[in-house]
């Protein structure tokens, strides 16, 4: 049976000893110090630090051991199956990490003549992404999917303002099955969020949508395939309804993996599209970033993209950063984007080629349907919505029958899966499925592992019906057993930093 490492590793502030250090710095040459002395000593008292920061004092060896031990208590794609729905945890090719190190010492303000190589890569990547999404131009700047959404929503706003419509078009429509980032991005961009319900098939209820659109509509944000893994087959009618009302259509690219080189958001009528390179294009997610969330837009909207755009001057045969864009919304971050991530995506597309991307899409969908078919047979799980229709890259099961019959919840199932050396699916999302388990296998998993996952869920179902407490108290084989998440957030018990913990000392330090 699986057993994760358990190092009982203390918080780093408890480690080390006075006077130790893990790194030495280049010294100041004597010729300099003779001339200047220690300049920092002459800082005015009003601004000079008078007490060293309370950082731990560790030797290099201790730092290495601490963090390597921590790494062993962390589960990643390289360790096993990671069917976290909506997150597309596919394999992250090692060659791409290797190549990414070769731009580590490039400064963003270097003269363009010294950065032609990286500019060409970024330019070409932006063209490929435009081709894949069926859009006219791509901005590589957003740092993450939600950042792309914010930018996209701001572009909607800019477009309506350009047309003299901004005061009127204040509503952004999102389906009830949307990712949480959609409504949050809409609010940040100053819109009132209007939620439309799903129909019996889990898709946008066209009649409700038609009733919701009006001259106040700024646009609609939609994921297709949606968060149930179901293709919005009425997309043509949806697009027409929104466009007819004068709104814009935004594509949340979280689920792009299912349709690469099969169908393009731009062709379906989407005006703005974001992509999550850390999902669809195989760049590592780093435990929560850095990612990259480029957006592509249709021709009419290119003028609003943030500055600079990476452009090619055909006459002078050079790539350059184009700041000369009058209608640009400005900037959403410093510099040009998460370049180390973008370079990895470039290498990924080189490896896959057009045909490989299509195959990735197809196999991700095949894998999801293969799982769906078998999981449906397991006692306690139910597949709501769109009976009989194929799923795309993911499927969403409900553990409601199991909960009713045994008291074992989706959360418990998720925790128990960890004991078998696999990561859990996404739970309790989308909100329109009770006790949801959202499963996305991706194309990176072998059939044998899919079969093993099915066996694990069968086993857990058995456990739930015979010994529910076993599942409810899971996990057992992880670095720690089930954590009290309420305690971490309660104003009376929370300890959000070592400093706060020491001041309050409420969490009894039960560790080593």
């Amino acid at each position, binding site marked *: 049976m699986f057993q994760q490492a358990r190092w009982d590793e203390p*918080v780093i502030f408890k480690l080390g000893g006075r006077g130790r250090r893990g*790194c030495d*710095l280049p010294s100041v040459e004597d010729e*300099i110090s003779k001339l200047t002395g220690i300049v*920092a000593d002459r800082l005015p008292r*009003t601004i000079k*630090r008078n007490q060293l920061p309370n950082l731990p*004092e560790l030797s290099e060896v201790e*730092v290495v051991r601490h963090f390597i031990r*921590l790494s062993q208590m962390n589960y*990643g794609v*390289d360790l096993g199956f990671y069917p*976290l729905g909506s997150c597309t945890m596919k394999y*992250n090719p090692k060659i791409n990490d290797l*190549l990414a190190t070769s*731009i580590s010492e490039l*400064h963003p303000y270097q*003269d363009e003549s*010294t950065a*032609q190589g990286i500019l060409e*890569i970024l330019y070409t990547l932006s063209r490929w992404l435009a081709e894949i999404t069926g859009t006219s131009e791509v901005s590589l700047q957003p*740092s993450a*999917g939600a950042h792309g959404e914010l930018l996209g929503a701001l572009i909607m706003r800019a477009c309506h303002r350009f047309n003299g419509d901004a005061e009127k078009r204040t509503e952004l429509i999102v389906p009830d099955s949307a990712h*949480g980032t959609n409504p*949050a991005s809409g609010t940040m961009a100053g819109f009132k969020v209007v939620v439309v319900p799903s129909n019996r098939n889990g898709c946008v209820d066209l009649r409700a949508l038609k009733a919701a659109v009006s001259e106040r509509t700024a646009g609609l944000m939609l994921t297709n395939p949606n968060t149930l893994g179901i*293709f919005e087959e009425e*997309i043509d009618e949806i697009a027409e309804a929104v466009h007819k009302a004068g709104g814009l259509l935004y594509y949340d690219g979280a689920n792009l993996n299912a349709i690469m080189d099969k169908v393009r958001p731009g062709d379906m009528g989407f005006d703005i599209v974001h992509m999550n390179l850390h999902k669809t294009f195989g760049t590592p*997610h780093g*435990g*929560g*970033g*850095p990612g990259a969330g480029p957006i592509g837009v249709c021709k009419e909207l290119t003028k609003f993209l943030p500055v600079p755009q990476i452009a090619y001057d055909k006459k002078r045969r050079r790539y350059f950063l184009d700041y000369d864009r009058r209608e640009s*919304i400005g*900037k959403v971050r*410093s510099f040009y984007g998460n*370049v*180390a*991530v973008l370079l990895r995506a470039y*290498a990924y597309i080189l*490896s*896959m080629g057009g045909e490989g991307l299509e*195959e990735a899409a197809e*196999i991700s969908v*095949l894998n999801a*349907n293969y799982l769906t078919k078998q999981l449906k047979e397991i006692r306690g799980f139910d597949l709501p919505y769109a009976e009989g229709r194929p799923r795309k890259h993911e499927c969403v099961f409900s553990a409601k029958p199991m909960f009713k019959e045994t008291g074992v919840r989706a959360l418990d199932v998720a925790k128990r899966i960890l004991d078998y050396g696999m990561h*859990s699916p996404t739970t309790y999302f989308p909100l329109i499925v009770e006790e949801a388990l959202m499963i996305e296998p991706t194309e*990176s998993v072998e*059939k044998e592992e899919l079969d093993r996952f099915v066996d694990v869920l069968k086993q857990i179902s058995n456990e739930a019906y015979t010994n529910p407490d076993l599942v409810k108290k899971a996990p057992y084989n992880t*670095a*720690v057993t089930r*954590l009290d*998440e309420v*305690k971490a957030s309660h104003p009376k018990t929370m*300890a959000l930093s*070592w*400093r706060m*913990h020491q001041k309050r000392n409420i*969490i*009894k330090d*039960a560790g080593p």
Partner: protein
Amino acid sequence: MQRPHVHPYIPNAVPEIKREMMQQIGIKNIDELYADVPKKFLINRKLNLPEPISEHEIKEHVEALLRRNKSTMNMPTFLGAGCWSHHVPAVVDNIVSRTEFLTSYTPYQPEVSQGMLQAMFEYQSMICELTALDVANSSMYDWASALGEAVRMAVRINNRAEVIVPKIIHPERYSTLQTYVEPLKMKIKPVGYNRETGLLDLEGLKHQVSENTAAVYIENPSYLGFVETQAEEIAQIAHDKTALFIVGVDPTSLGILKPPGEYGADIVIGEGQPLGNHLNYGGPLLGLFACRGEMELIRQMPGRIIGMTTTHSGDKTGFCMALQTREQHIRRERATSNICTNEALCAVASASYLALLGPQGLKELGEITMTKTQYAMQELTKIKGVKAPLFEAPHVKEFTVNFDKTGKRVRALHQALLKQHGVHGGKDVSKEFPELGQTALYCVTEVHSRMDIDRLVLALRKILRGRR
């Protein structure tokens, strides 16, 4: 030769396996899985994408392209302005290459993600120690977007419509702030500076600040490198009108500069890139975000926060995401921010970097940088017609160099430096601050040797004397 059909990243691409799986789900053709896609949208042509190539070919191709770049390793480079060259210890690169960290997602299942969670808690805790504040989140995208988020947070707290910023601010941060607060219809009011010292014009500030001021923002060290020594007075002026005081920092200065929490900052933001993260052509960066430990503030914080807790059984300490009800996946349109994916791995890099340096190392880093900066300024000023810095205030690692009296433009001088001497000058800021004349922003850190600085000075001398 035809490339094998089975891509190494796709195990089930083997035709027999594919067939077997299709059989199992009762289809004959993959297209059946796309039957619900309207026919007219299905792509029926070859997209304009590259042909797949092997790993070896990818390596050759990408490396050949990248050889066209010239990096800061190949030429002494004096650029900073929001992205700074510092030594990144090998240990840091080693730790962030651990694929257990690298290939994990957001730690939604804390029991199996303790490594990442503890590392992020330690990062937050170290940022708290540097800033002297009680709470830090586990990262924003960068300093610029953190500024946008900080001002929005201030508005959530006091519901006011104006923010005051210094006129000397990084233009990219200013532009990002504009983008972030535009939907709130906020007014951004810049406050001028003393032409001698660069310091904020306090009279101007008092004039601007009012009951409508949501926050007063300063950068310390400032965009143009000098230290804002009046920070305490600025805090007082902001607090007199119950506005929040937001301070933006370069954290490498916090071994020698007073932590903003000690001079009244309510929110501290900044750029964590110089703490163990490479330049990477400007991304990824690492947005710092910390605030005072009052519930009123904490509840309005954007981003992910990791907290300490115990197991249900109570016998072990552990870590998990805390206060998630602020976040988009729970609160949706009422969330404090839409941020989800952030820069977690860069935060791990910074935690390990700070652990390596320790308190003494961080202090030394500040001292070394400041001393070398002083040397560079002294030597540059010895050149006829060159003045460095323009402002009479302490400078930590960046400084203005003015070339007005040389009669040359910054652009021309920098081109000559680069093309004739293989030295990359600083950032030309003469368009950003026309009132400062032909001025550039230079950066010197611990990675610049005396030789690098001397080479710059010698090259400038030669250029200005009209010699090669």
